């Protein structure tokens, strides 16, 4: 399609890549965190809970700034990770990190609700049959929370597709490297007469997210039907 310029296509591709990675990488962590918050008792639990919600509460710019402080080349974690070849500053990986962190509370909340809805009696039944806690989780809990995991993933994906404030603050806007769709949209909106171009990009991002949403609905329904048992 030629109604998007090459730079815009780059932004679309990059946004997809960033959102997919942000979602996939944070998913296991989100599941673990959700289970921990829903089922375990440990000191500092409420602290973890607050921390997870922080990106939701803070203005995105602040989150981005904090990321910069922490994961920037001079930041403590950034400096630590750099020798391992993990660099976030001004890279798409940083965009994914920002998107993942911004989406994390949404993901965790969704999964956590599902975990809380699982009947512990089923998990008990599995354990009496010889399944260790890990096996119980993998064969009973996880399949049962799958609709929640899917919901969490799609929320995270949608959020990651739309995330702007933290991302641009953390990794700036470098066309082809860190320019995501929302950054491009923002740029168009800053100049008089840029609305039409912005709208085209908005349409693209809506189409992508809606496609993902429909796919997740379909998947979720299939899973739910299986669990309902017919």
């Amino acid at each position, binding site marked *: 399609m030629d109604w998007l310029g090459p730079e815009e296509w780059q932004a679309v591709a990059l946004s997809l890549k960033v959102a997919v990675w942000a979602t996939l990488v944070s998913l296991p962590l989100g599941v673990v965190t959700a289970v921990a918050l829903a089922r375990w008792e440990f000191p500092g639990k409420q602290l973890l809970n607050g921390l997870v919600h922080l990106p939701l509460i803070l203005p995105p710019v602040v989150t981005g700034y904090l990321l910069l402080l922490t994961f920037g080349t001079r930041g403590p974690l950034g400096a630590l990770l750099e020798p391992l070849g993990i660099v976030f500053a001004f890279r798409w990986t940083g965009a994914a990190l920002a998107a993942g962190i911004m989406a994390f509370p949404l993901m965790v909340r969704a999964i956590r609700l599902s975990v809380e809805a699982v009947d512990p009696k089923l998990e008990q039944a599995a354990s009496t049959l010889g399944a260790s806690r890990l096996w119980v989780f993998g064969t009973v809990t996880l399949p049962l929370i799958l609709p929640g995991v899917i919901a969490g993933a799609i929320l995270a994906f949608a959020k990651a597709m739309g995330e702007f404030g933290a991302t641009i603050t953390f990794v700036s806007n470098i066309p082809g490297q860190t320019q995501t769709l929302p950054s491009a949209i923002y740029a168009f909106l800053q100049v008089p007469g840029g609305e039409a171009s912005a709208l085209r990009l908005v349409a693209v991002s809506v189409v992508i997210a809606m496609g993902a949403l429909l796919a997740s609905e379909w998947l979720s329904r299939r899973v739910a039907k299986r669990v*309902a048992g017919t």
Partner: protein
Amino acid sequence: MSLSVDIRHALPGLALDVRFEAPAGITVLFGRSGAGKTTVVNAVAGLLRPDQGRISVNGRVLFDSGAGVNLPPHRRRLGYVFQEARLFPHMTVRRNLAYGQRFAPKGAGGEEMGRVVEMLGIGALLDRRPGALSGGERQRVAIGRALLAAPKLILADEPLASLDEARKAEILPYFERLRDEVAVPILYVSHAAAEVARLATSVVVLEDGRAARQGAAAEVLSDPAVTPLGVRSAGAMLEARVVRHHADGLSELQADGLTLWLPRVPQAEGTPLRVRVEAHDVMLALTRPEGISALNVLPATVREIRMGDGPGALVQLSAGPNRLLARVTRRSVEALELRPGLELFAVLKAVGVAKESVADL
């Protein structure tokens, strides 16, 4: 082969304080609704951590509050048939059944899937999910799932409660076989007199969280003071041996000098077995009655008469070395002038002995 339980636990509705030793075989727990049966079973399974006490199977300590031992359920090698099925809703029946097999040690010699499926009559259901099963079907799958886990201890909480008589009759022999051949200790909760009589090696009666009575099945169930299943279920056990199967469908049994005629029993000639004779099936006669349909007329001596609160009385008889219980009315006790030492005849119809009341020894 034995299970030893000694636990104390306080629940809002119940103060549990139970101590019993279950020998090899099937130990039936019973008691009224809310007596604490499920709670005890859960403690043995490790799903409930008792406040205090000790639980061991064949010397293996599962729980010991003193020593700080508390094996997690998955290390206890159980097969637990829950009171409410608890099938995994997201798995097919087949996967539900196979669930525990994976965790059984290699060569644990568990049951074979095909055999269990056939016994339970769930072959047609294997590819369905629990949501599409009837109540009884669910319960049968739950039984299968527990049996297939190659357990070292079977816990069954009213496993047959929602099944029809015919189905029960098909599954009961299986539990008997487990008891007799596989020698897995079984803790079994049941309210059904016939089931208890047929399966129980030993019986623990729970009352308000306490073990009010326990002992060998024959002993507890023959004790007129207990009759824990209600007075109608009082009865006595006779140990007998199959002498011959007759052509007219009757089996001749010998119990220490007494001859018993019963509808054909499945055991081979020469097999020792035990027969439960229910007290209300036994009629007493001062002289040997003639021209009657009852085939079993056993000479006996009155040992003890226990008058009930109501119109009934339980008469304990000795017939040779065997004990029998007869439930009669007080009016008959007076009319026949029954008293300890009196010699009389116990009359028992062959068909009065239910199939479920005959069991391998």
